[in-house]
């Protein structure tokens, strides 16, 4: 559930409770106000009636409300003095304009007593009252409306104000989702004056900066470690080479030493590849200029000519246009030679390599195993098919790394019995 909706839910519930309580209290307040108002009216009636009696100097006894809104009856002096002005709610059979027969109607009744010319009278005055259930009903609906209007107002405020307020937050989330430690040059940033979001942004940036630093250190560590390995490897290889030249060695010993050298060679090759990878990832190649891929392919093919001939692999180049790419030339060479070497080495006797150069893409197709490689993992470092143990499995990883550096798109597919590697520049 979205934060906005959750806020809305809580506010709705709270509003409902507050309004219900308020409605309850408000009902009694209004009812009292109404009664007070009616009572005041009754008091005024009373004064007017008594005033009129005094003017006319005569009182007609009235015992029912049939003809008017009051009754007057003579009472004893004692009873008269025991009466206090009292207002009561009572029911009276009345017939309104919209009623077909008399109905009990709620009325407010004032009971009083007064003295006139030595006689005492009791008087009752009535005024019609709102029906309480009508009032409750009316008020209920008013409050329902109030509630609905409030909720509508809150929804509107939510969608407008809150949405606005939270916008930096959603932006930050968006940026964080898109953040990539390899690709992103800058940390997520949102423009906001809200303290909390600024704090969040700062916390996120600190965290990312720390991550980036760790990442950087890790890269440097690989780079340093690889460098430090170079000298010991050199010593080992060279010492063994020197030992090989010893005339007194038996063939068996020579063989062992040669195997050891080869093993160290492999170690050295892996190390060199790792160095190259870390150099690419550390962006230590920056001599970017327009490079003609066609020329580099021709040079590379020439370089591998004898080997291709030995492997009985035919290389054909189809160039529909000159392909110019802005990049470091040595990386361009690494890119092409890795693709070509891959296409020749994993080929079959009598197989073919098709190189296709288009204005914005380059593809190498070659024969080889008659089944597709794992296209997800083919570019991973140290991925190699089980049959080939002498490969370091870093060639394609380096290729991928170079493409990554320049944001080229490289992909592998198996198509018509051919392994296809394609780069889109």
């Amino acid at each position, binding site marked *: 559930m979205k934060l906005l909706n959750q806020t809305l839910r809580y506010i709705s519930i709270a509003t409902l409770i507050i309004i219900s309580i308020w409605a309850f209290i408000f009902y009694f307040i209004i009812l009292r106000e109404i009664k007070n108002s009616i009572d005041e009216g009754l008091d005024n009636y009373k004064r007017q009636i008594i005033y009129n009696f005094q003017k006319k100097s005569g009182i007609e006894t009235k015992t029912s409300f049939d003809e008017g809104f009051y009754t007057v009856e003579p009472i004893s002096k004692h009873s008269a003095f025991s009466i206090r002005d009292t207002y009561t709610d009572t029911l009276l059979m009345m017939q309104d304009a919209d009623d077909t027969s008399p109905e009990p109607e709620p009325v407010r009744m004032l*009971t009083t007593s007064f003295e006139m010319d030595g006689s005492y009278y009791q008087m009752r005055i009535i005024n019609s009252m709102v029906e309480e259930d009508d009032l409750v009903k009316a008020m209920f609906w008013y409050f329902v409306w109030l509630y609905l209007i409030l909720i509508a107002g809150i929804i509107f405020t939510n969608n407008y104000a809150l949405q606005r307020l939270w916008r930096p937050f959603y932006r930050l989330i968006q940026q964080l989702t898109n953040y990539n430690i390899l690709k992103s040059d800058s940390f997520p940033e949102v423009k906001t004056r809200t303290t909390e979001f600024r704090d969040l942004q700062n916390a996120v940036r600190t965290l990312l900066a720390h991550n980036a630093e760790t990442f950087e250190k890790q890269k440097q560590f690989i780079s340093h470690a690889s460098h430090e390995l170079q000298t010991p490897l050199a010593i080992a290889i060279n010492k063994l080479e020197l030992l090989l030249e010893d005339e007194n060695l038996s063939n068996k010993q020579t063989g062992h030493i040669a195997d050891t050298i080869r093993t160290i060679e492999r170690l050295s090759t892996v190390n060199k590849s790792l160095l190259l990878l870390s150099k690419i990832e550390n962006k230590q190649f920056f001599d970017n200029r327009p490079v003609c891929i066609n020329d580099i392919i021709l040079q590379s093919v020439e370089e591998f000519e004898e080997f291709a001939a030995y492997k009985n692999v035919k290389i054909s180049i189809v160039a529909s246009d000159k392909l110019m790419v802005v990049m470091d030339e040595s990386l361009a060479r690494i890119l092409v030679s890795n693709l070509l070497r891959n296409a020749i080495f994993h080929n079959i006797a009598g197989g073919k390599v098709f190189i296709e150069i288009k204005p914005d893409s380059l593809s190498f197709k070659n024969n080889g195993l008659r089944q597709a490689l794992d296209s997800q993992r083919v570019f991973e470092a140290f991925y190699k098919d089980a049959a080939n143990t002498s490969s370091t499995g870093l060639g394609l990883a380096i290729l991928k790394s170079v493409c990554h550096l320049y944001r080229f798109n490289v992909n592998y597919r198996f198509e018509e019995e051919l392994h296809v590697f394609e780069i889109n520049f």
Partner: protein
Amino acid sequence: MKKIILFAMFASSVSFSGIFAQEISQRNVPSVILNKFQQEYPKALDIDWKKEADLYKVDFEIGSRRTDHDVWYNNEGKVVKHKKEIAKRDLPAAVLAKIKADFSGYRISDIKQITEAGKSIYTLELNKLTKEWKMTFDSTGNILDQIAD
């Protein structure tokens, strides 16, 4: 502490009115008396009822000048006493003459007419610099009471 304050308030109220008085609401005033009062003073404002022994005392103001009135009704509904604020020009000529004669140069204030059993007496205050007198006169100008204040 509270008890002491209450006692002090009690004592002051007794000394002020002279007799035991109890504020009552209009609802507790017998309708006969209430109606009589309402008919006599239909324009009364700021009405306060008090019960003093078996008398009902009503304190109210009338008119735009808010002249203060105190009216006492007995339990038969008859007015037994009426005390009201009056202006200097409403004082009987005899009283004014007496003041002019005996208290020349005094300023007159807080004039009240008290009518009881058909007779009126007048209370007022006389001020001159630091001197201050609380005076009571009858309608013929005789001094009934004179207290230095």
